């Protein structure tokens, strides 16, 4: 079946857009999460919405599952291919189609790299606000699928708050637009659905004015508790920083080894606090932030002198995940959310888990919104180490749930966390979510097996009436 599809795709898309050599296919076997691997049955690299629609229609007709993938940087296996299916890679759809600074928006193709949007609109005084740590490579299409956040979403929100409309290819192979007219907010449901409701082919994003002033503070603390207290104090003072990031000693060590970011070596925790906005606002609030950090016990505070200095401060944070590779042969990047006020308690619990199990845990997180990224370290050469790390990693998620939080703040559920979803939601909750999937994708061929632990059979609910009496008006 796949061989026949490959021929069909070659005829329509050209031979350079179809990959079916097994050695090449295997390079697509995983995204940023290497724990799950599956070599795709076929890879296609379409160049237009029409080509995507063609591929999807062919798949549906053949009953073959398909999965969309952008740059392959996801951390939950959301774009994990199917060995019996087609991987639709959007990395060649990377044109910035329109920049409209007067209306603060731009139209881009899904393969456009997040940071490239900002680069393209910077001459107009704008940028694209959502900034996942992988922004230098992750694609906007992938961001839409995962509703990606980033350090600055504390103030500016997530992808869903910055995407105005999407052209999509529906799971039945039709090209349509979401968010461009009245009716249900299907765009809101689509963003963050992890590619299970269709494939994005064009995205209208909102652009944000480059702030007049930015101040970045790197504050070093003698303990994670005191750093956590500083965060609470800042938020409690009615300040909404652009970002508040925390790293603990182990994460600092890794970042230092990787990019020599110059963080204070003896700090048990550092906070990166960034304020942006009109100069007058930033000036008065930044002074307060510095004072609050000092009162909370910061023993060193470094203020970024210029953009280069700021970039260096952020470099340590942005490279932290990959940098942990320098201090540990293998590790799990966890992603959980807790109410910010539970931070000290949960951090103490993680520390206890780590000590009891002997599994090292480095902590990097978006402290401002309680989004934790514990990095659970292990040596994959050691027997059973991976399993022990998995246990600790899972226990951390349980802590998040117990505190009324979430099992994922930005990495998504993908294949990796589908089994944890029932700990957060009842069967009925999940069933209701899947009603949307059934509406979009009755044959369940669009990225099947992701997000939900058990697929819902879409024929379950009897359809009493199709459409409505006056629906024929349209």
């Amino acid at each position, binding site marked *: 079946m796949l061989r026949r599809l490959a021929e069909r795709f070659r005829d329509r898309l050209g031979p350079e857009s179809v990959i079916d050599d097994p050695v090449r296919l295997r390079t697509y076997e995983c995204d940023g999460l290497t724990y799950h691997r599956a070599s795709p049955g076929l890879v296609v690299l379409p160049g237009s919405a029409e080509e995507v629609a063609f591929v999807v229609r062919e798949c549906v007709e053949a009953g073959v599952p398909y999965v969309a993938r952008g740059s392959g940087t996801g951390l939950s296996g959301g774009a994990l291919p199917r060995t019996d299916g087609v991987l639709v890679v959007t990395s060649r759809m990377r044109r910035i189609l329109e920049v409209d600074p007067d209306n603060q928006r731009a139209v881009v193709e899904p393969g456009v790299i997040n940071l490239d949007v900002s680069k393209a609109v910077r001459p107009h005084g704008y940028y694209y606000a959502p900034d996942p740590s992988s922004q230098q490579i992750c694609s906007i299409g992938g961001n839409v699928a995962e509703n990606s956040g980033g350090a600055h979403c504390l103030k500016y929100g997530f992808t869903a708050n910055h995407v105005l409309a999407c052209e999509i290819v529906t799971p039945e192979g039709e090209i349509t637009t979401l968010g461009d*007219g009245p009716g249900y907010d299907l765009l809101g449901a689509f963003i963050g659905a992890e590619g299970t409701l269709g494939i994005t082919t064009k995205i209208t994003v909102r652009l944000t004015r480059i702030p007049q002033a930015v101040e970045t503070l790197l504050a070093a603390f003698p303990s994670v508790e005191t750093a956590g207290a500083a965060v609470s104090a800042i938020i409690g003072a009615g300040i909404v920083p652009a970002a508040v990031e925390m790293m603990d000693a182990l994460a600092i060590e890794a970042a230092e080894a990787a990019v020599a970011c110059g963080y204070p070596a003896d700090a048990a925790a550092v906070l990166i606090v960034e304020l942006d906005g*009109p100069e007058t606002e930033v000036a008065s609030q930044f002074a307060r932030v510095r004072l609050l950090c000092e009162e909370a016990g910061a023993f060193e505070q470094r203020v970024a002198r210029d953009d280069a200095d700021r970039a260096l401060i952020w470099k340590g944070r942005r490279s932290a995940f990959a940098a942990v590779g320098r201090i540990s042969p293998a590790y799990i990047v966890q992603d959980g959310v807790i109410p910010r006020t539970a931070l000290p308690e949960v951090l103490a619990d993680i520390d206890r888990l780590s000590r009891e199990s002997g599994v090292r845990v480095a902590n990097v997180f978006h402290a401002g919104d309680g989004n934790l990224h514990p990095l659970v370290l292990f040596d994959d050469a050691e027997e059973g180490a991976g399993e022990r790390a998995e246990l600790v990693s899972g226990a951390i998620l349980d802590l998040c749930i117990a505190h009324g939080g979430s099992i994922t703040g930005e990495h998504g*559920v993908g294949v990796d966390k589908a089994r944890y979803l029932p700990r957060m939601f009842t069967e009925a909750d999940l069933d209701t979510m899947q009603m949307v999937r059934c509406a979009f994708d009755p044959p369940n061929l669009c990225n099947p097996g992701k997000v939900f632990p058990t697929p819902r059979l879409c024929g379950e609910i009897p359809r009493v009436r199709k459409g409505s009496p*006056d629906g024929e*008006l349209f």
Partner: protein
Amino acid sequence: MFDSRPVTDEDAVLGVRPRYVVEPSTVAEAAAVMRVAHEEGLTVVPRGNGTRVHWGAAPRACDVVIDTRKLDRVVEHAAGDLVVTVEAGLPVRSLQDVLRTTGQQLALDSPFPSTVGGLVATAAAGPRRLLYGTARDLLIGITVVRADGTIVKSGGKVVKNVAGYDLGKLYTGSFGTLGLIVKASFRLHPLPEQQMYVATDGRDPARRVRALLHSHLVPSAIEVDGDGTVAALFEGTAARSRAEEAVALLGAGATAAGAPPAWWGRYPDGDVLLEVQGKPTDLTGLLTVRDAWLRGSAGSGVWFLGTSAEAAPRVVAKLREHLPTVVRHAPLELHETLDLWGPTPALSLMRRVKDQFDPDHRLSPGRFIGGI
């Protein structure tokens, strides 16, 4: 069958008088009502304070009105986390009173004394949508009673969360056609220390909107009135000095004040209210539309036009040549001719969503787009 209060003419939804009006005071009671309606095959229309119950089309049928106003508890206000969870029938103004005590607010405006649920169900938002977004952007979790009476939730009570589908956005603006909203969690914002308004005379509105929008001053709102007056709101610890900068930027005819202009955040007058979802640069064209009074969030490109019953068909047709235009409310006799919701892409997907959530089409039937 229900513990219904006496039904009066006041309870009619756009002329359709219900057989029962029930006022559940707990989520469990609300679910019980929905379950009975499901079993009996009854049509249901949810309603809060009824401030926008005249928006949208009349229901094809309405056996039961579920009045949510007794679901009015603040379930949890986690001030340190800037998060609140409330029941749907709580008036937004009461919620703001509670939040004010801790220096916080829900950054959603409404000119009416609406309930939280009503605001979410109609996706109504005011001037400050420019900075804070609308209900969809502030909603972080929602609990809904499904058509079959099952209580289900989506999202949670943390501001950052991508676990499962975000159904909150789907329910937002769904006009009671997908389920009964019973609880909602929101992210909150600190109350600003200062609030300052800057207003201009009617000259050159498009240029002034552009100047504000592209300035570094980060206004919370940029509104325009039909006579070309532009007004902006500045909030923060240094709002006064930013407002002064804005006055300088806008030139002669601009003034700063501590209070908004009288028209701020109110819908334009008229028998018919239209809402246009467009772009900031639509302003110049919209100001030339005859027989309609424009008012809107110029920075976001969301526009309202008030017009008369006679002019409405022409105005609507004219607008729809270029922009998606929804008739928010109009005299009943115009409903047939006006096509309240207008065309939209992806309507077939919307129908299928409706079929999934409400296969019998019993929830606010006919109120929504395409007769959904």
